[in-house]
């Protein structure tokens, strides 16, 4: 199935959960995920199964002041 992650099209296996996708992205440290415009709670990551056409924003902390 095809997802849009941070604006990029990605083909992934069917039935993937958000947590599994995050693991596949090779992320070190914590991320927050917005699925189709709704911010997911961390506890939802292993529970929510992704569907074809879903749009995700995966964000993290970076350096910044103002």
């Amino acid at each position, binding site marked *: 199935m095809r997802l849009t992650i941070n604006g990029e099209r990605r083909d992934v296996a069917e039935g993937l959960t958000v947590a599994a996708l995050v693991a596949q992205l090779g992320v070190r440290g914590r991320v927050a995920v917005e699925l189709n415009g709704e911010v997911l709670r961390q506890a939802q990551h292993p529970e929510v199964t992704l569907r074809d056409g879903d749009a995700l*924003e995966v964000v993290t902390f970076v350096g910044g002041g103002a």
Partner: protein
Amino acid sequence: MDDALVIAGKRFGSRLLIGTGKYPSHEVMKRCHEASGSEIVTVAVRRLDLNAKGEASLLQWIDTTRMTLLPNTALCYTADDAVRTCRLAAELGMSKWVKLEVLGDERTLFPDVEQTVAAARILVKEGFTVLPYTSDDPITARKLEDAGCAAVMPLAAPIGSGLGIRNPHNIRLIREVVKVPVIVDAGVGTASDVAIAMELGCDGVLLNTAVAGAKDPVRMAHAMKLAIEAGRAAFLAGRIPRKAYGSASSPLEGLVD
């Protein structure tokens, strides 16, 4: 003498808040944070770089046992974008403290105060502890306090400009009209700017570029720490009134002929 900075009931030993952007390296940033004595650090929320696998996370370079993270909404231009960023930050971080920043113009990076107040109202209702970046306007500062913000953070000058406090009179008025802490945020260039902010009675200063962009960032971080302490001590000590003419501090009597 206990002179802690108290924001939303939480006590901080340092009145300097520092950023995490634009340092030459993560190592230098960490040393600057240590030299500054800061206990609050701002961080930005951005899309994960999908092509930078396994890159070390910023948080590895921040001592979160000592420092409170203050995620910002830097470069948001609408209340909606800022609120969305705060909700993501709350899921990323360990708290609901945020530095709210809604900009109105790309060239000056001045805040859009109307959008800032609107976002603050929503965020406070959602249980966030909101520290808003704002203009040096006492009326807006009061609106932000009325909206339930935990502090107000007027600019000294445009973000990253290093121009120092452009309108000390307004900053002093803001300190008079609100009860919540007043933290000068943005535009500081060097240590004397920080000292002036503190001498005006401000409760703290938030800065980033003035340290990160200095020739010797670690030494500048130390200078900022001293300036906070000197300015605060001078404010508490109470300065002498300004006079138009000279007034000798040595006795006028007993001069030798």
